[in-house]
């Protein structure tokens, strides 16, 4: 029978494996032998999963190898895409602004949202009566008129340029003609709308007054901007008539519009909202 306590030294020696088993007391020799047998060299069956482990090792190595690069690539791609998005936004902002400046046409939603006071005529007739007025306004290199008409200072600055003045005068003549025409039928007067109360026209009158002229005199001095096919808006269906008019030298003053519209020029003949410029037939007759 083994008596307690075992010394720590003996326990450490037995668990760690003693070299001289024969020197052990018979009672502990068996334990030592079992410890030695437990640490015997590996049997083949114990290494049976070597192929599996090595395959897993290869896979893990390949995955970790491949896993790092895409992560780096992903980071680079995200950075590159961010830069591209920023550049694209910048390009759109720049080219969009340039396009708007070139054509003088802002997006409809932008016009509606930012320039509610642009309409040269009362708003109730914006859709019908003043549709042509609106389009004419755009032809006046309308950035200054359409975009800056919210303040009188800006409007006057816009009117200071001949193009804007010409366009506004053109619109005024149309509005005046429309009022006259529709007023005859009573549709416009019935609503009590008067184009002369439009902000732009008020400003036009103020500008004329500041120069000691009437609107008609001021508009008579307005110079028609040079119209090219690139900046000619689609709404100017009669623009050819304009050039025809100027080339025909009806008034003898190039690029000037006739103002005020006279009934003899066929205000009643022309449909409301149409240009005051002579029609093709009148042009051809004048040319002949």
């Amino acid at each position, binding site marked *: 029978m083994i008596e307690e306590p*075992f010394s720590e030294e003996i326990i450490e020696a037995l668990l760690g494996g003693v070299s001289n088993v024969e020197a052990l007391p018979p*009672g502990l020799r068996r*334990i030592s032998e079992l410890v030695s047998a437990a640490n015997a060299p590996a049997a083949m069956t*114990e290494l049976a999963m070597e192929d599996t482990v090595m395959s897993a090792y290869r896979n893990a190595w390949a995955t970790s190898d491949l896993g790092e690069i895409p992560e780096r690539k992903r980071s680079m791609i995200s950075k590159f895409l961010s830069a591209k998005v920023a550049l694209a936004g910048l390009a759109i902002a720049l080219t969009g602004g340039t396009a708007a400046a070139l054509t003088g046409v802002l997006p409809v939603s932008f016009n509606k949202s930012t320039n509610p006071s642009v309409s040269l005529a009362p708003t109730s007739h914006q859709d019908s009566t003043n549709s042509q007025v609106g389009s004419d306004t755009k032809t006046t290199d309308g950035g200054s008129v359409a975009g800056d008409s919210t303040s009188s200072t800006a409007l006057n600055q816009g009117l200071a340029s001949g193009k804007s003045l010409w366009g506004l005068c053109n619109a005024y003549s149309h509005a005046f003609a429309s009022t006259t025409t529709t007023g005859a039928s009573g549709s416009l007067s019935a609503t009590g709308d008067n184009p002369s109360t439009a902000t732009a026209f008020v400003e036009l009158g103020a500008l004329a007054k500041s120069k000691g002229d009437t609107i008609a005199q001021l508009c008579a001095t307005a110079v028609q901007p040079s119209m090219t096919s690139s900046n000619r808006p689609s709404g100017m269906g009669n623009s050819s008539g304009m050039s025809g008019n100027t080339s025909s030298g009806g008034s003898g003053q190039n690029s000037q519009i006739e103002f005020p519209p006279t009934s003899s020029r066929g205000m009643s003949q022309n449909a409301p909202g149409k240009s005051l410029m002579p029609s093709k037939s009148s042009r051809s007759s004048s040319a002949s």
Partner: protein
Amino acid sequence: MADQLDLVSIIQRAKSGDEAAMEEIFRHFAPPLLRYLKGRRVIDPEDIASDTWLSVVSSLSKFQGDGSDFRAWIFSTARRRIIDSARRASVRPKLEQITEAESAAQPSDPSFSPGARSEADQAVAALVECLTDEQRDVVLLRVLGGFSALEVAKIVGRSEGAIRVIQHRAMKKMAENISDTNVTFDDITAFPLTK
């Protein structure tokens, strides 16, 4: 043996993708690990060993430490797998456990026979036969893992003193069951210890 190998350089080579180094590690640690698992009497030691190695292999690139740390890492991973396995088994229906135990005891493989157990397995089984699970764990970590009492304490999460108490009681039990002759305390203390 583990101490004779330059484990640090082998581990570094294995971390850098050297298959031969990984093979060396496996051949060195696989047998004691499997014997440890069998000695712990888990239901499917090969399965847990496989899980342990897969875990080691997949996390090898993150390992930092020396050879002793690496050895402790492998056995700690195996211990966690044992705990997980026991936890899973505890929530399984008892009938399934019985079926599993029966199938494990009598595998369908015709080449299987009880005598196919290696001498090492038999020695481990005989060594820890009479011990509690806690004692078995400590003794096997010391015998098969080659850890000191302090290292076992770290792996198990106990104090070194507690481990010494456990191994002392285990040794007493082993001596009582294994020894075939009466040995007195005087005989043991008089024994000249050499390693």
